[in-house]
């Protein structure tokens, strides 16, 4: 593989495009692209409807933690070619994607394991926060449970 490995984490106030994250990892040496998309679910919490989420991030530290995350993923699955994550900031309505990530690999098993690890580690370590916004105008900060 002469190609350089790409690790990309972008924070964006705009709607995410799945095609963009897929294109960012595409490689003629890879036969598999694994993708995960997290979306805002319609939900009811204590009689209030969730109408959307509000995200914020510690942006420079997102990049430094993502660098560590990619080193960890590449240590476990050395065949991984490219890693791309796009994450929303600001308001995200119900039904919209808050995160889209793609990983390319020559064969599918490594990429599928890597993408699961990547989203788990993102939730555990990347400094991003969301609060739920309810139809009552109330809000509540969330906590990743895993």
């Amino acid at each position, binding site marked *: 593989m002469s190609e350089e490995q790409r690790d990309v984490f972008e924070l964006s106030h705009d709607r995410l495009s799945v095609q963009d994250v897929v294109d960012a990892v595409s490689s003629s040496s890879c036969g598999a692209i694994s993708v995960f998309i997290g979306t805002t679910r319609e939900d009811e919490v204590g009689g209030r409807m969730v109408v959307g989420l509000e995200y914020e991030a510690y942006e420079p530290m997102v990049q430094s933690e993502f660098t560590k995350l990619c080193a960890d993923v590449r240590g476990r699955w050395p065949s991984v070619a490219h890693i791309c994550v796009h994450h929303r900031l600001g308001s995200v309505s119900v039904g919209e994607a808050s995160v889209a990530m793609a990983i390319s690999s020559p064969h599918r098993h490594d990429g599928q394991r890597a993408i699961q690890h990547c989203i788990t580690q993102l*939730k555990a*370590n990347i400094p*991003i*926060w*969301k609060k739920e916004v309810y139809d009552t105008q109330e809000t509540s900060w*969330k*906590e*990743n449970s895993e």
Partner: protein
Amino acid sequence: PVFVLYFAKSAELTGVREEEIVDVPTPISSRDLWRLLLQRHPRLSALQDQVVLAVRQHYISISEQVVTLGDGDEVAVVPPLSGG
């Protein structure tokens, strides 16, 4: 001075997103650093036992661990993460 950043619920509790603190002793344990922030913003106690700090973009739990702070260093208050 040290620059302190507040995120998510900690920013709501303090009412500020960033402040400059000039008189932080150094070296200091992360627990004493947290106490110092609590003195300035008593409402932060709502995050007690849930929060960690980030010093120069490295997580550090509230403990006896000692950190050395240089002029202009960045300290962040990190409530439970909820990205993704």
